[in-house]
């Protein structure tokens, strides 16, 4: 019941007029930027981060929760109407949603996506409310060794286990870890990899890396390899209303998808990609209309969209209770916390009750705003989609450079941004995932701190990591995650 009281108190914070306004602004801006083709949630959050510099932390984070949800919904609108998934989590939606739009049923597709996102987002937020205090209780017993083991576990699942190639995922992770080392060492004051450049002494900012990889890299890539390839936008025809049959086919899919998406979000499994595909596969198997799949089946939109939102909420559980980001977007949100000198984790639930529960309450509010805002405004989002590519990317880059420049008012940050852009270009072209790099940058320094703290407590005895049971089991699990797929492959090869 303590959680309920805390939540009620949180609503008191979230419903203050100014905070409500920031939530509203966040959802609107998040949707607007998220709708832009080629702009995924991670980039949306990174580009809009500079807007909040002068806000108080509570207002800023409430605005960010709105941006996060808005960006998700904006992305699905683009996918359904344009068939260019802005992120891997939208690919499943593209399969059916775009086909529905082609068949003149864009309205119901967008409606089931919006209402499904609302249902899944709200149910997942309830689950978050109930689960977070439990995780906090466990996390309070964690020492530095346990945290370090948990972070190693997150690194390995995000970089090595998911994605098409272990070696390329790890390469991306290590690039991120290296960038995380740049600047002043927090324990000794030693400057590392800064080469005397004052802008680098502060460390590499997550916004510069994310915007460089996602915006500059993407612009270079699209211009050099894909410009002139035409895209066909589907017309927004017919009504937004879902028929009785649409409803009866959608709601079981929403509920199943929430049950799939939320748990996947809470573990370090790379965010929304796996649960959206799992949900799609589930719906395809259970449907009474298998002949429609591949031609625009509404379950195939309702499920993945709901799973996407449920997972996006689930991701907030490890982020808020343990301070561990498990997706690139969550890593940027963690960067936003750090800008205010806040370190998410169990202690934040003690020291910043207002902020944490205000944020959680604002997730409920954000879902409602999203629902009432988006369906009526769909006409505007469609107009946004019609912005020609040359103006679109020019505008994105102006905004991207603004975020980097406003850090130190220095052109050096713009040069860093360009270097990250080249990196992002190469990674996009040669299929190296960028998510692990962003997570490595943000989580690497935290992992190093915990590692050295654990060794300080044990007076340099490295066995702490294997003698503490929680830390030992997490590390053992990590080793298994690496070894088992290898062994499986090896056995398959030798048996055939």
């Amino acid at each position: 019941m303590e959680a309920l009281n805390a939540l009620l108190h949180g609503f008191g914070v979230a419903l203050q007029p100014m905070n409500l306004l920031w939530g509203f602004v966040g959802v609107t801006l998040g949707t607007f930027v998220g709708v832009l083709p080629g702009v995924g949630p991670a980039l949306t959050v990174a580009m809009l981060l500079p807007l909040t510099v002068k806000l108080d932390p509570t207002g800023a984070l409430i605005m960010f929760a709105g941006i996060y949800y808005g960006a998700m919904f904006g992305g699905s609108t683009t996918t359904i109407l344009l068939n260019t998934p802005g992120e891997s989590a939208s690919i499943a939606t593209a399969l059916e949603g775009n086909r529905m739009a082609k068949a003149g049923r864009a309205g119901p597709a967008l409606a089931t996506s919006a209402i499904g996102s609302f249902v899944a987002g709200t149910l997942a937020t309830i689950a978050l409310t109930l689960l977070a205090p439990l995780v906090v209780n466990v996390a309070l017993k964690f020492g530095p060794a346990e945290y370090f083991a948990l972070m190693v576990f997150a690194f390995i699942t995000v970089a090595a286990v998911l994605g098409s190639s272990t070696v390329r995922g790890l390469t991306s992770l290590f690039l991120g870890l290296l960038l995380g080392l740049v600047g002043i060492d927090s324990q000794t004051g030693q400057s590392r990899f800064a080469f005397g450049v004052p802008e680098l002494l502060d460390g590499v900012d997550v916004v510069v890396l994310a915007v460089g990889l996602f915006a500059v890299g993407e612009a270079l890539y699209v211009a050099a390899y894909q410009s002139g390839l035409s895209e066909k936008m589907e017309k927004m025809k017919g009504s937004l209303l879902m028929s009785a049959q649409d409803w009866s086919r959608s709601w079981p899919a929403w509920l199943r998808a929430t049950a799939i998406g939320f748990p996947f979000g809470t573990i370090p499994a790379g965010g929304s990609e796996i649960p959206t595909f799992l949900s799609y596969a589930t719906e395809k198997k259970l449907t009474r209309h298998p002949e429609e799949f591949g031609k625009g089946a509404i379950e195939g939109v309702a499920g993945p969209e709901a799973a996407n939102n449920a997972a996006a909420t689930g991701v907030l559980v490890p982020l808020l209770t343990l301070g561990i980001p498990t997706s690139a977007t969550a890593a940027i949100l963690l960067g936003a916390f750090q800008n205010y000198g806040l370190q998410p984790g169990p202690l934040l639930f003690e020291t910043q009750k207002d902020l944490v529960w205000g944020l959680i309450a604002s997730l409920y509010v954000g879902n409602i705003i999203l629902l009432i805002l988006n369906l009526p405004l769909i006409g505007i989002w469609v107009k946004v989609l019609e912005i020609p590519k040359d103006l679109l990317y020019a505008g994105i880059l102006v905004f991207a450079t603004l975020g980097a420049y406003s850090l130190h008012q220095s052109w050096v940050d713009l040069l860093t941004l360009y270097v990250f852009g080249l990196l992002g270009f190469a990674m996009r072209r040669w299929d190296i995932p960028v998510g692990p790099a962003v997570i490595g940058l943000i989580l690497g320094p935290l992992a190093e701190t915990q590692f050295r703290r654990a060794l300080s407590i044990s007076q340099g005895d490295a066995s702490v990591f294997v003698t503490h049971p929680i830390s030992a089991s997490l590390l053992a699990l990590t080793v298994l995650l690496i070894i088992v797929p290898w062994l499986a492959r090896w056995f398959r090869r030798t048996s055939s």
Partner: protein
Amino acid sequence: MRRAEIALSIGVLALGIGVAAVTASLPSEGGYAGIGPNFIPAVVAAGILLLGVWLAYEAFTGGWRGGAPDDPAMRGEHAFRAGAFLWISAGLFGQMALIGWAGFVISAAVLFICVARGFGSRRLARDAAIGLVMALGIYLFFVKLLNVNLPAGWLEPVLGGAGI
């Protein structure tokens, strides 16, 4: 293209060597923990070197596993357009050079024009107009509303001092 994969693998190796070299110059004393600020950099250097070797091995033995297909059409691409790449790069460098001197609005407009050109626009006047209006809007919003300092540069007589 295998050649690019080999080059990138060697780049990763070279980066690992560079990181190792810098790490060697970092102090190692670390108080109670027994490890200093050079320990994790050494781990990262070793990791990057190892990954470089692994990438190079894959590149030399049939290409990166599960990598991007060789055929551009299968990747949904056309041939590399150097002009587009250079226009965008020029815009970003132009902004770096101009921002402290000509100010945010002008440098952002230059960036806007160059990027639009890189994406195939031939309507200079339209791009310049949109770029200027957008940059001016951002400038006023950030400086007057958010109190974030951005350089006014050449437009200072018109815009007044930055940051109020």
